[in-house]
């Protein structure tokens, strides 16, 4: 009998690593493709992956590819593939491309197994960013370039790679329907990190299942791992029913209430502070509690998640203080009664409705009239591109995309970037901008830690967002299935998604 | 009113297009209706009688020919004042009255449309009209559903009279009624014509009714007028075979009549 692993995810899956952005895309990318380096386990930093070794000399980064690395097609992985993949990523300009935008002077294949990146200026997060550069089998892809705007590269195989895999990861695509499910099977030519002997022989990754369906499937033993988006009550019910165990995947994701600093009344820092102080942190965590000791969130003391520079494990997480909130509001130039607040919540994540309603309840105690709108994600990404029409507050989960604080803080708070959902506070503060730039170019770890501490303090002052809690995704696993990367502290990855390496999963019969 | 016929039609024709069929409902019909006369139009079902009526009433245009009314040309589109002068009484007294309106409102409609009489005196006029057709004035407040067939037909007549017309087209006004009721309605129609100097075009397929009421008769077959003449002439010496057949089919109540009828059918002449 085959060992099958059945999981689900609320969003739909994009298997082109140059386009993917969200959790599901990351999970697919890490199983189908390999980057040069991979986040380290149980600690910060990166570990060798497709690159067995590398040297950094000022602005020059030189990587040596793992001996004998080959793609699923049997083609060897060469430096040319790395160059092609990078160029493709930058040309298409989507997904992780922004991590490298304007930073890389050139990339060249020194020889078949050596690739060299030259940066334009010092950029400390570069190495970490490379975890997002999936290396594509360019020989195979070039057979399917298709038509498109990329000159001799045609469509850069955009259509083909959205439907087929061309990587060196432990798994390959057997079937893929972005609406319904992706079926993965082991890559026969895989030669990377060791594969667990009990690893699944088939993985079915299903999309957009209703919570009640997942719950029923789990209790009928027809599903193995739930998505992280189930409401706590459902997880709790499953847990009480027996037959499952709960696992968590903390890692670099902050749940922020993004406050629109460009729209009255939140363009006044005092009003923002008032909201931060009025926010009901305790009830939030109560609502996220699954069982004694397991909750979908953990307290967050500032803008940076635990384990990243700028986070202070000693510091107490903020608590609700209505008294102080009233005082801050008194300082604010606006009369709350005259400025209704628009709060949006992402329709796809039902649990967020409660947080939104909780805000509605608490903020209205301050005298605000609060409108709550359920908005589909697609529409939110649309709305936030214009600060004038963006809601006053949205709860957004922002994950560090690389194991470096820069990937979080710079994208969120730098005023140099165009407005997107990540930067939907629209903060424009010189001090913040300066610290962000310093943090990027400084390579000394100690100095960087100090810079990010200063940044955190400044951000706490400016209150462009409410640091609601840190996401602590909870999964219910069918007994008999285990995901050691989620279960053992020394195997955890600093950023989410990277632990879902199916080759490490264990399935008993 | 000028001398000469009140209504004059020349070469009237009507073709209906149904899908890709053409139905010739009326073919080259000439008709003259003198002022004050009761002109009967008889013929079998589908012979074009109602079509003729509808053209006279301006419900749809003729496909050929022309009409003169009181000396003036009469087309389908006509001024409201002209509409007033030609009125209609239909066969089915139930459907000809709007069941959701009171009798009074139905009779009042022509008064309102043509601004006949002052607003305040219209209710009185309605009552007078009801009385004229032999109905209680209190009926104005009732709905058609609570009336018998004969009473409804009287209401329809009162409504036609309200417009103070010169010509009334009666399309089989009594064929849905019982013999006794029919007799009463016929008497009413006859009295009104005399008292008000009305002109009738009386459509029917019952020759016995025609005999009692009409001055002149036109016989229609398949959209064509086959015969026209005074009532006396038609009954004593019908020319067309069809007219004879029509006379022969009339049910009669006495031996004597039956004998006469059969003779007409066979010979085309009234015996004696």
């Amino acid at each position, binding site marked *: 009998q085959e060992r*099958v692993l*059945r999981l689900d995810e609320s969003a*739909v899956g994009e298997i082109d690593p140059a*386009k993917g*952005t969200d959790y599901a895309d990351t999970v697919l990318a890490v199983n189908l493709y390999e980057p040069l380096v991979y986040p380290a386990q149980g600690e910060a930093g990166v570990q060798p992956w497709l690159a067995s070794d590398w040297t950094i000399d000022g602005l020059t980064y030189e990587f040596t590819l793992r001996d004998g690395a080959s793609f699923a097609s049997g083609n060897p992985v060469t430096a040319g593939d790395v160059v092609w993949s990078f160029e493709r990523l930058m040309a*298409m*300009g*989507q*997904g*992780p*491309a*922004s991590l490298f*935008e304007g930073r890389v002077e050139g990339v060249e294949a020194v020889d078949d197994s050596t690739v060299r990146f030259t940066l334009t200026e010092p950029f400390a997060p570069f190495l970490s960013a490379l975890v997002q550069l999936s290396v594509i089998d360019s020989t195979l892809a070039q057979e399917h370039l298709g038509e498109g*705007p990329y000159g001799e590269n045609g469509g850069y195989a*955009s*259509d083909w790679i*959205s*439907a087929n895999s061309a990587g060196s990861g432990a798994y390959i695509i057997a079937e893929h*329907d*972005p*609406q*319904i499910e992706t079926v993965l099977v082991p890559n026969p030519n895989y030669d990377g990190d060791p594969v667990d002997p009990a690893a699944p022989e088939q993985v*079915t990754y*299903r999309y*957009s*299942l*209703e919570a*009640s*369906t997942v719950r*029923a*499937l789990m*209790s*009928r033993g*027809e599903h193995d791992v739930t998505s992280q988006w189930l409401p706590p009550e459902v997880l709790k019910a499953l847990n009480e029913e027996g037959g499952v165990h709960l696992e968590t995947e903390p890692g670099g994701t902050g749940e922020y209430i993004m406050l629109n600093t460009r729209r009255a009344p939140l363009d006044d820092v005092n009003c923002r502070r008032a909201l931060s102080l009025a926010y009901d942190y305790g009830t939030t965590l109560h609502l996220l509690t699954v069982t004694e000791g397991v909750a979908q969130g953990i307290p967050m003391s500032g803008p940076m998640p635990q384990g990243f520079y700028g986070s202070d494990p000693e510091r107490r997480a903020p608590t609700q203080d209505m008294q102080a909130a009233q005082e801050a509001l008194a300082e604010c130039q606006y009369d709350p009664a005259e400025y209704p607040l628009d709060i949006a919540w992402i329709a796809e994540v039902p649990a967020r409705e409660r947080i939104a309603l909780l805000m509605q309840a608490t903020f209205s105690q301050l005298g605000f009239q609060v409108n709550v709108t359920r908005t*589909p*994600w*697609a*529409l939110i*990404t*649309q709305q*936030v*591109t214009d600060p004038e029409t963006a809601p006053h507050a949205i709860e957004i989960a922002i994950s560090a995309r690389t194991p470096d604080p820069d990937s979080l803080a710079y994208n969120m708070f730098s005023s140099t970037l*165009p407005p*997107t*959902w*990540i930067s939907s506070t629209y903060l424009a503060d010189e001090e913040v901008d300066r610290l962000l730039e310093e943090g990027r170019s400084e390579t000394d770890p100690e100095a960087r830690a100090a810079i990010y501490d200063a940044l955190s303090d400044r951000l706490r002052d400016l209150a462009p967002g409410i640091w609601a809690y840190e996401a602590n995704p909870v999964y219910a696993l069918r007994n008999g299935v285990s995901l050691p990367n989620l279960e053992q502290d020394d195997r955890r990855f600093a950023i989410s998604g990277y632990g879902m390496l199916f080759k490490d999963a264990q399935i008993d019969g | 009113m000028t001398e000469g016929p009140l209504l004059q039609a020349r070469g009237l024709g009507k073709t209906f297009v149904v*899908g890709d*069929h053409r*139905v010739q409902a009326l073919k080259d019909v000439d008709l003259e209706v003198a002022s004050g006369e009761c002109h009967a139009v008889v013929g079998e079902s589908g012979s074009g009688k109602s079509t003729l009526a509808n053209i006279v009433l301006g419900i749809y245009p003729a496909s050929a020919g022309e009409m003169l009314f009181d000396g003036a040309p009469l087309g389908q589109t006509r001024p409201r004042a002209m509409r007033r002068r030609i009125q209609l009484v239909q066969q089915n007294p139930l459907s000809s009255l709007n069941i959701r309106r009171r009798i009074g409102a139905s009779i009042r409609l022509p008064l309102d449309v043509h601004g006949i009489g002052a607003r305040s005196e219209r209710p009185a006029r309605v009552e007078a009209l009801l009385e004229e057709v032999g109905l209680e004035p209190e009926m104005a407040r009732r709905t058609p559903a609570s009336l018998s067939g004969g009473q409804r037909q009287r209401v329809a007549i009162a409504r036609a009279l309200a417009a103070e017309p010169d010509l009334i087209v009666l399309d089989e006004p009594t064929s849905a009624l019982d013999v006794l009721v029919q007799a009463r309605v016929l008497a009413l129609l006859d009295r009104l014509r005399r008292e008000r100097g009305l002109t009738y075009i009386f459509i029917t397929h019952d020759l016995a009714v025609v005999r009692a009421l009409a001055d002149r008769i036109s016989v229609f077959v398949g959209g064509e007028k086959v015969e026209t003449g005074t009532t006396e002439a038609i009954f004593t010496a019908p020319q067309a075979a069809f007219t004879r057949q029509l006379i022969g089919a009339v049910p009669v109540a006495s031996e004597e009549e039956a004998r006469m009828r059969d003779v007409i059918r066979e010979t085309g002449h009234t015996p004696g």
Partner: protein
Amino acid sequence: MSPILRLLIHRLALSLLVLAGVSILIFFVARVVPGDPARIALGPNAGAEAVEALREERHLNDPLIVQYGWFLRDLAGGDLGTSLYTRRPVLQDIAAYLPATLELVFIAGLMMVLVGLPLGRLAARHQRRGPDHLARFLSVLAVCTPAFVWGVILQLLLAYVWPIFPLEGRLSTGVAPPPDITGLYTVDALLTGQFGTMLNALYHLILPATALALSGIGQSARLTRSSMIETYRKPYIEMARAYGFKEGRIARRYAFRPALIPTLTVLGLDFAAMLANAFLVERVFVWPGLSRYGVEVILRKDLDAIVGVVLVIAAMFLITNLVVDLIVSIINPRLRLAEKRGK
């Protein structure tokens, strides 16, 4: 030309006109409303140039009328454009998802006819007596309950509390889909002789199809009932009784056939309503059909895909009505033989 053929051609021409109207309506509604589909398609991290390039590529910068022109030109070539969301030709997407929906809707439609009509007939035959009140109450209840509620209730009771039926999906895990001929699993399995697969597919169809069919069953029962009652008042039923036709035969044939004419016409509309309700039911039963795609593309303002989905649904509606017209004209000799009329 036979009258039926002529009727069909006439109807077909009208349908095409309506379809053109639908395309205009939905095309303009889709584009007039604010929001940048290119931005949504490329995701929040895409650069402005990439967005602009896509806008240019999709002619989104042209005036509306010109855009419609492009649309028509592509349509003439059988091209409904490319989905911004799945990045596949819309036609290909629809071809992939439509069969599952069709299979569901067909089975539900079958249930609607096979259960609803006899139920209505029964009620009419016993008008104002016990079976009638019961049948009417049941059918009103069925009509009054949203399809998604039926879905949730059926799923809860028959797949969870008493796990008789599968919870979701078209086939059990481990059962391979049959070769793709029509895309309807039951039909394909039957064609290739895989009876096990066919039964499995049917087994999975029962709950969602029932959830979808229930309101249709109620509706058709109600329609049949009132139409039959109307027919029972006709003189020819009086005649049939005066001539000693058996009551059962009158109900099954003599009154039923004329009663079917108005009923079927309206049932065509109900069938279309099922297409819409499939949007709800598919969601509950994780049915990999067109509806899920439809909701998704609507949420993403995936213009071409929205237009494609709506056009296909409208086309199915029109085809259904065409078929209904055909059946009605077979039942109703007046339509069929109109030519020989008026002798």
